[in-house]
């Protein structure tokens, strides 16, 4: 029997009842998101939990979602052997006198388990002062900072980023949620995973991806990704004999008679997205 995938949500403002004694799981989480009153600024967290609860594997009990009103309750659970795979960790804890408690709890959390931790905060700016310190260096690959409801980080909001991370960990790549839209992901010759939209954003610029999304693609498909890629108005020249691909506008000496023109989509289809990135960066790159 494969190990259950466990997600912890640690936030002292979760509407957990006194009877629940600071911990919710299973049907209680569904009741919590569906029937209870939430503070206004937690709207995005509530929607994220709804999306997580709707992951089919939760109904199959392959994935467990547990909410905690305080980190110390989560640590008790970890001590009992319930090790999380992903943690959504609220930075501000109202009962802590100073944010150093949040820092110490975070450090303890990173030490006692190998979970990936999303540090999730109303106020993001004060956090880096602590997590940029050397004591967090070894943990850097295992945490990510987000501001609650932040929609400026990429075409994914903070919550959509977290949701997609969980979906990826579970191998669920048949759809993706971006800018509030659920979009089907189909096998195509360009990208392997809906998270590669982030790579497209890096290569093509956010405005291109936003424009593409605003046209409401029903799916991330061969046709729609091709449209997105070719929105980059750049030409490429391939010299197959030399095994070199260059930007049409590059300064490198060219042999036009030995070169063929390619579109952006053709470059990605033939050589992959990393080659596109390399040739945009350097102006020329080798291809096989």
């Amino acid at each position, binding site marked *: 029997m494969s190990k259950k995938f466990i997600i912890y949500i640690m936030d002292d403002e979760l509407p957990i009842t006194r009877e629940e004694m600071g911990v919710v799981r299973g049907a209680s989480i569904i009741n919590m998101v569906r029937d209870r009153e939430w503070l206004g600024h937690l709207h995005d967290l509530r929607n994220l939990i709804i999306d997580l609860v709707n992951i089919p594997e939760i109904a199959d009990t392959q994935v467990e979602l547990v909410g905690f009103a305080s980190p110390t309750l989560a640590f008790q659970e970890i001590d009992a052997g319930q090790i999380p795979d992903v943690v959504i960790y609220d930075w501000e804890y109202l009962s802590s006198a100073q944010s150093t408690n949040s820092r110490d709890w975070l450090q303890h959390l990173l030490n006692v388990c190998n979970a990936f931790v999303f540090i999730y905060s109303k106020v993001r700016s004060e956090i880096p002062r602590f997590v940029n310190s050397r004591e967090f*260096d070894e943990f850097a690959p295992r945490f990510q900072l987000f501001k609650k409801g932040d929609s400026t980080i990429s075409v994914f909001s903070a919550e959509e980023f977290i949701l997609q991370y969980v979906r990826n960990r579970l191998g669920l790549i048949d759809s993706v949620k971006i800018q509030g839209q659920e979009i089907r992901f189909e096998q195509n010759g360009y990208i392997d995973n809906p998270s590669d939209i982030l790579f497209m954003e890096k290569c093509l610029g956010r405005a291109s991806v936003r424009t593409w999304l605003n046209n409401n693609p029903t799916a991330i498909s061969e046709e729609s990704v091709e449209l997105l890629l070719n929105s980059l108005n750049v030409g490429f020249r391939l*010299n197959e004999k030399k095994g070199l691909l260059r930007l049409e506008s590059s300064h490198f000496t060219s042999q036009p008679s030995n070169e063929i023109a390619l579109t952006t989509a053709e470059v990605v289809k033939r050589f992959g997205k990393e080659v596109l990135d390399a040739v945009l960066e350097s102006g020329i790159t080798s291809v096989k």
Partner: protein
Amino acid sequence: MRHIIAQHIGNHWELIEPFERSVRNKTIEADLKDGEREYDVCLRYVHQVVNDGDPPEVVKLTNDEIEWLKSNPDDFKRNNPNYRSKCTLWVIDSDSLKIAIEKIRNEKRVLDSEYICHTNLTGAGKAYIGGEALFGEDGYVYINHHSDRYGGEKTPRELWEATKNVFLALGYKDLVDILKIYEEYNESAGR
């Protein structure tokens, strides 16, 4: 420093905003992300060049890496796992040439948080040009204009030549133009 920059660049070229020369359809409004304009994250690592010198904590290319770079700069950049940990970023604005190691933790960046970018060196302000520099154990400094924010393929050739003159005038006498290595690679490939 200002007069050297003015002499070679400032009297002939305009300062540009980040991404102004980008081939990737990027703009400040859409693509400058959290953590990418803060200078304080790299403050103690920045070398404001007066006369030569290594930026703090730079890790130099070994002789084997230098040979690799010279024989195939594209393969070196794409496949050397140490590339980014040895890479430094440089920018020239109206005041100075600034150089800093790229590998500086910047947790305000959601993506790529182990590294700064060129706009951290400028506070997302204007610059003439930016790129990468690799310091070799052979004593040479290897430079290109690879910067999505201030460099890239739209950089005029004459500006690049002027930039090299700034480096030379500021004491980097042992300077290698990586773009020339790419050109030589381009010409010899397929033979």
